[in-house]
């Protein structure tokens, strides 16, 4: 019961947020950036401004909807980069073995010993703020778990009969890695990817909050919270709604990821560790 619930409920949340983000212009009647009007500043939620307005009189509701585009882009793209790097390193290390395997395992250990948010912070320091930098910073810093899983499954799949058979048939190593080994580990990789998307969205919010991510006036949930901190006493709604948006999105991804994991492998209970 719980298994299905996680999968369906989490998936539903993700779908709703994706729809709201993609079709944001259909749902809002204020521009998230241009409709600044100091006459409307810091209004509480009402019929016109559903989530109230911020310090510059902009509609919090439309900023939250448009902000989802940043979070979803960052979550999806950076996690795709992570998965590709992790798979590339992991499969090749497990399949080829030897010196290359030692190098990759060493690199993974080094990556794991630097907290990923701090690593991303360092990269943002060099690249400067912006969406592109965020995608690179978060895409390069969270592939270690994918790599570990890919390596260990490649290692165990290598000795399977059908891989040996493919070898005997004269398949090239690259062809074996792509057609025989990769498809057999896609389940756990998808689970890690889904949970990693949630982590990336949280990291984006934190970095933007620190002023290192998306720069104002463009709406991102993290940078909206930077503004909101200053006026938390007079306009708490400007802080509450972007936070709820982050929470719901990440919750949806986490539930979906958990559900997917239970669905694919009922025995694998602990998360990541």
């Amino acid at each position, binding site marked *: 019961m719980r298994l299905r619930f996680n999968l369906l409920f989490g998936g539903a949340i993700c779908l709703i947020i994706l729809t709201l983000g993609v079709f944001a212009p259909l749902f809002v009647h204020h521009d998230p950036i241009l409709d600044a009007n100091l006459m409307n500043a810091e209004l509480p939620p009402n019929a016109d401004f559903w989530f109230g307005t911020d310090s510059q009189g902009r509609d919090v509701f439309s900023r939250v909807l448009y902000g989802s585009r940043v979070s979803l882009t960052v979550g999806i793209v950076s996690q795709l980069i992570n998965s590709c790097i992790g798979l590339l390193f992991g499969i090749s290390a497990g399949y080829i073995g030897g010196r290359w395997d030692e190098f990759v395992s060493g690199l993974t250990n080094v990556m794991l010993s*630097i*907290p990923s948010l*701090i690593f991303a912070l360092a990269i943002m320091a060099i690249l400067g703020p912006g969406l592109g930098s965020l995608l690179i910073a978060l895409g390069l810093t969270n592939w270690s778990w994918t790599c570990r899983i890919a390596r260990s499954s490649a290692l165990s799949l290598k000795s399977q009969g059908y891989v040996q058979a493919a070898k005997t048939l004269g398949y090239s190593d690259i062809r074996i890695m792509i057609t025989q080994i990769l498809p057999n580990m896609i389940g756990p990789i998808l689970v890690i990817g889904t949970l990693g998307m949630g982590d990336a969205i*949280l990291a984006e919010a934190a970095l933007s909050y*620190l002023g*290192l991510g998306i720069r104002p006036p463009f709406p991102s949930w993290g940078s909206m919270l930077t503004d909101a901190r200053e006026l*938390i006493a007079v306009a708490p709604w400007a*802080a509450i709604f972007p936070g709820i948006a982050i929470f719901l999105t990440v919750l949806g991804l986490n539930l979906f990821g958990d559900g997917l994991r239970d669905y694919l492998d009922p025995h694998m209970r*602990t998360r990541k560790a």
Partner: protein
Amino acid sequence: MIPTILAVSLLIFVIFSVIPGSFTSSLIADGKGRNDPKVVEQMNKEFGLDKPVYQRFGSYVVNLVQLDLGQSFRTRQPVTHMLLERAWPTMKLAIAAMTIAILIGVPLGFVAALKPGSLLDAATMIAAVSGLSLPQFWLGLLAMYVFALTLGWLPSFGYGDGGIRNLILPAVTLSVAPLALLARTTRAAVLDVMSADFIRTARSKGMNAYRLVTWHLMRNALVLIITTVGLQFGSLMGQAVVIEKLFSWPGLGSLLVDSVSMRDIPVVQGAILMIVLWFLIINTVVDVLYAVIDPRISHG
């Protein structure tokens, strides 16, 4: 541990040195017009940035071994000195947060596991997945609004006189994610051990349920719990950066963020190295603890 530290310092050095763009020019540019080449040259000389990369890395490592992390670009103070000044507040915050997480998270997961499927179990697990999905600094912001600004029970930011009143809000905020993860891990670990053969044997021999739980179960679940605590220190240190900034806590994290926005590279390098060092020390301690709890592991 030593090779890892060396590799990490190499990685950090490479990130900050090999990438195009001069730090000196960005340091003095401030977005106003072009830089005076003479000033750039002089500053490069002062910070030793005019030498080739391999020489710089050589002297970086030699200095590192002597615990000399160089000089801050901004304040011209030795970095080691600046870091040591900020180390204690961060350590205090991290230890307080982890203690809260362990004291609440472990018993919560334990109780949930004793009656799997019960209302309490479901509520705990829903709370745990929510705790893992929250942006912690947002929770801190709300806590600041409620407990400091509205109710006035606690100070809203700052270190104060170093007392516990200033510590409560940041520490509780920071503890949420490790607490949630510990509750989940403990529950999973206890459920895992409960289905093991030796527990069934002990039960069938009529062993007192209380003793069973406290001794056999705890000892076996402890290995997984300690692993989680060790690993969680990493993301805790990451989150601490944001929480310190939110509560204006004068620790390593806020030093790191300020140095990043001022491009004070020696301080950024030093702060990251220090955080990594702590993380590695904690995980070495965890490895030692394994062997104490479960002697089988030291042979493996």
